[in-house]
């Protein structure tokens, strides 16, 4: 296998990991939302991310051959092998915390996926083309909710500010890349997120301002997702997500 192909597989799996782990977290909202319409909407968003994970994993499986399937990547890898960004594995938190994470991630995905539609890898470009449409809807939702909560009641304002402050430090690594990604950026396959960092920041700042909230303190940053250096949360997610599949190895479901 060529190095570029192996790099592409790894990159695609990373994108699958981001989508799966966040989809898992959002799915925890089902039957726990603030009202029934939100249960449905959060279920929708979760389904989009899980669907996205399936597309990335399936493509990675096709590229790797060896009879792998999407489920291999989701169910048969361990904590140190998952390479999702840490922001995706943070707990569900309260509704404001969830919205803060979504605001950051959805804004990021809007730029990221738009750029990925131009990837020289046609398959990645095609997945991005589908996903970017869903992200438009996600972003509208997370923006609207940030405004409502920020400019709602005293309590919601406080909670929304806390959510933004608590998630902030996990956004930094979204704009960094390692050598593997640099090689793929050079080959026109991967997205260079540093290129839209300023736009992302400006968008976030605008929403936060309109929501009568404060921009968080910019100094702290937690990183490590792409190296498999995770928070304690991921192990528990995988314990739950993988338990049944691993209990009955080589079974069809």
């Amino acid at each position, binding site marked *: 296998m060529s190095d570029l192909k192996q790099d592409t597989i790894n990159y695609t799996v990373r994108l699958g990991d981001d989508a799966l782990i966040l989809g*898992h977290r959002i799915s925890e909202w089902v039957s726990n939302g603030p009202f029934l319409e939100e249960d*449905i909407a959060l279920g929708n968003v979760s389904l989009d991310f*899980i669907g996205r994970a399936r597309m990335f994993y399936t493509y990675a499986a096709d590229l790797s051959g060896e009879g792998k399937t999407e489920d291999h990547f989701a169910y048969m890898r361990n904590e140190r092998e998952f390479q999702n960004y840490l922001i995706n594995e943070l707990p569900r938190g309260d509704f404001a915390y969830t919205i803060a994470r979504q605001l950051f991630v959805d804004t990021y995905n809007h730029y990221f996926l738009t750029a990925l539609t131009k990837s020289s890898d046609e398959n990645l470009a095609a997945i991005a083309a589908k996903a970017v449409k869903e992200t438009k809807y996600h972003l509208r939702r997370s923006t609207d909710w940030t405004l409502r909560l920020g400019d709602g009641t005293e309590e919601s304002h406080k909670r929304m500010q806390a959510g933004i402050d608590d998630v902030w430090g996990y956004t930094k690594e979204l704009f960094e890349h390692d050598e593997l990604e640099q090689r793929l950026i050079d080959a026109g396959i991967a997205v260079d997120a540093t290129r839209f960092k300023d736009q992302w920041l400006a968008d976030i700042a605008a929403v936060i301002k309109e929501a009568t909230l404060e921009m968080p303190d910019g100094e702290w940053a937690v990183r490590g997702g792409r190296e498999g250096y995770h928070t304690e949360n991921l192990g528990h997610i995988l314990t739950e997500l993988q338990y*049944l599949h691993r209990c*009955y190895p080589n079974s*069809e479901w």
Partner: protein
Amino acid sequence: MTAKDQTTDISALEGKFQQRIDAEQKIEPKDWMPEKYRKTLIRQISQHAHSEVIGMQPEGNWITRAPSLRRKAVLLAKVQDEAGHGLYLYSAAETLGVSRAELIEALQNGTAKYSSIFNYPTQTWGDIGAIGWLVDGAAICNQVSLQRTSYGPYSRGMIRICKEESFHQRQGYQIMMELAKGSPEQKAMAQDSLNRFYWPALMMFGPHDAESAHSSQNMEWKIKRETNDDLRQKFVDQTVPQIEYLGLEHPDKDLKWNEERGHYDFGELNWEEFIAVINGNGHCNRQRIQHHIRAHEEGAWVRDAQNAFEQKRKARKAQSAA
């Protein structure tokens, strides 16, 4: 108007109402209807709505643990459908002059009921198959007959909901098929889930006709179109070949084809257990309601924020218009 006039007035209205029902005309929200008809419908529709919503919990219990990504996505979509059914039915109930907030309050304080099937725990993945196949299957039997119910919004709701329920049943049966033709452990899982959910599914049709408190008036008003026992028989009959096809053992040892009736005879249900579960002795009664209350209370500040924001927005709009 004298009291006597009023009575004749009402009985005239009632006569006309019954005529319309007999002529298979749908009753619409703005039409006159007997107070008891309205009350009965509110009780039945809201109970149905609550069942959809509470039913999200036992199935939601397996979303994060589904054994494959495909099954995870299908289950998540199913639970979401059930939430949609709940919404739809709450709206149908609201056309009868009751608010969703009142209905939820009644669920939470125990005056309104939900289907007791959801007081049973989903212990294994097989239970997700059994619920889709048997519980949604039993619900469909009931709901297909309710497509012809006399109240327009309810009838239309049922038509729409039934389409999705048949998907759910098929998906549940697919889970059972995979398990039944899988490893010995998987097959045992399927058998165990069938054994646990078969009888409670039969009880979803309610007590025997002879013991059913509401049956005859509801049949006359065409709120109900078929009796509990008839629906149950239909379900028993249709389930037999499905169990055979899976190669599983039928949980009912008394089951026997009755040539004369053209139906299966089946064993007596354990009503004592059924009533015990309804009365709070199920594994999950308290858990289900407490979960609902907790989520509702945790969401209070979100709903408040939404209202406050809406108020501010309106005020701003009014000010800029002035």
